[in-house]
């Protein structure tokens, strides 16, 4: 299903390089190709950390904050700003 507004797009959606072909495609100008190469150089020089460290840190963050996450650990009704406060009347 294509959202209504996407029909407004004027560009052709043809990116053969996404599917494994050359990043420099035949519709590019020399200027565009030069820019792409410069961009790839920047991305290639990025210093990556090990996936094990990245995964451990993500897990640690979730563990540290899960108990304060109201969607995982629901707060009592009285502390939930979206719930009606029940009024208790005591017969004296």
């Amino acid at each position, binding site marked *: 299903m294509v959202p209504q507004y996407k029909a407004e797009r004027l560009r052709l959606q043809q990116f053969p390089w996404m599917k494994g072909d*050359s990043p420099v495609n035949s519709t590019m100008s020399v200027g565009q190709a030069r820019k792409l190469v410069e961009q790839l150089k920047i991305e290639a020089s990025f210093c990556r950390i090990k996936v094990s460290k*990245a995964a451990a840190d993500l897990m640690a*963050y979730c563990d540290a904050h899960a108990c304060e996450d109201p969607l995982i650990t629901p707060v009592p009704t009285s502390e939930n700003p979206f719930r009606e406060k029940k009024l208790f009347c005591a017969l004296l």
Partner: protein
Amino acid sequence: MGEMEKLRKEAESLKDQITAARKAVQDLTLQDHTSGTSVVGRVQLKIRKTLRGHLAKIYAMHWGGDTKLCVSASQDGKLIVWDTCTTNKVHAIPLKSSWVMTCAYAPSGNMVACGGLDNMCSIYNLKGKDGSVKVMRELAGHNGYLSSCRFISDSEIITSSGDCTCCMWDIETGTQKTIFAGHLGDCMSLGMAPDFNTFISGACDFTAKLWDIRDGQCRQTFAGHESDINAIGFFPNGNAVITGSDDASLKLFDLRADQELMTFQDSSIMCGVTSLAPSISGRLLLAGYDDFNCNVWDTLKAERVGTLAGHDNRVSCMGVTGDGMACCTGSWDSFLKIWN
């Protein structure tokens, strides 16, 4: 060898280098790491409030910082600012153009912004001296529709456009300060980093890009989706990016490892993701889909742990409050619902 051929070879070689470098740090997958963890318990959120008032499809919503106020944009040509606890409309702002696709609330609470097929981002001052809400600035310059916008502060805003670029604007002068070019397809969504130093964009070239706000540089590009990326957001600690696509999946990309760590998909889900929001701990990932539902995913296990069923049309937008207390969904059925 012509220059074009040289550049083609160089690009290929660099692309291979990046692939190899990413593989070289893959000592363990996220799945390996979480294999000993159990799936988070079943999540059953209930509708606490229904915000009624729009007369047509809702296209966007955004929470106002740490408050319980939110702004929504609808094809009925209105921006409505809601007090979500009372369901009262604080402001109902008529728009010049009803073809609105995005809206944003400034972190200060002083302004809201919106834009769409008018190719402009209009800024509204909510705290005018006489109490009325007026257009403060109309940011014109994009050559395509405005798909998303997010305030950095009361003086700077970032926009994404169908012209394949994102832009940072000086609201005071109404001028473009930085243009972020590089995507090869319409930019559909953007997300601001928690520290406001970087932002991410998702586009119709199937990639997400991380941009340095100050120097305009694209630092990282993430490929993997097989269709347009409609929704994008940061994991709460700013170290990962989550994308939602027309290919019916969501993906989590870690920024420091520079690669995809998880895909959230199910053979029974065949429609596109329209919106997403992580819970405040990052453990839950809420996603809105074209099939009128939202799925709640366990971020670490990539398993579905709940659904939010309550809309009668596509869920077009969603957001979790700053304190994580509730989630808001907006739909083409003209209603917003608050869940927790």
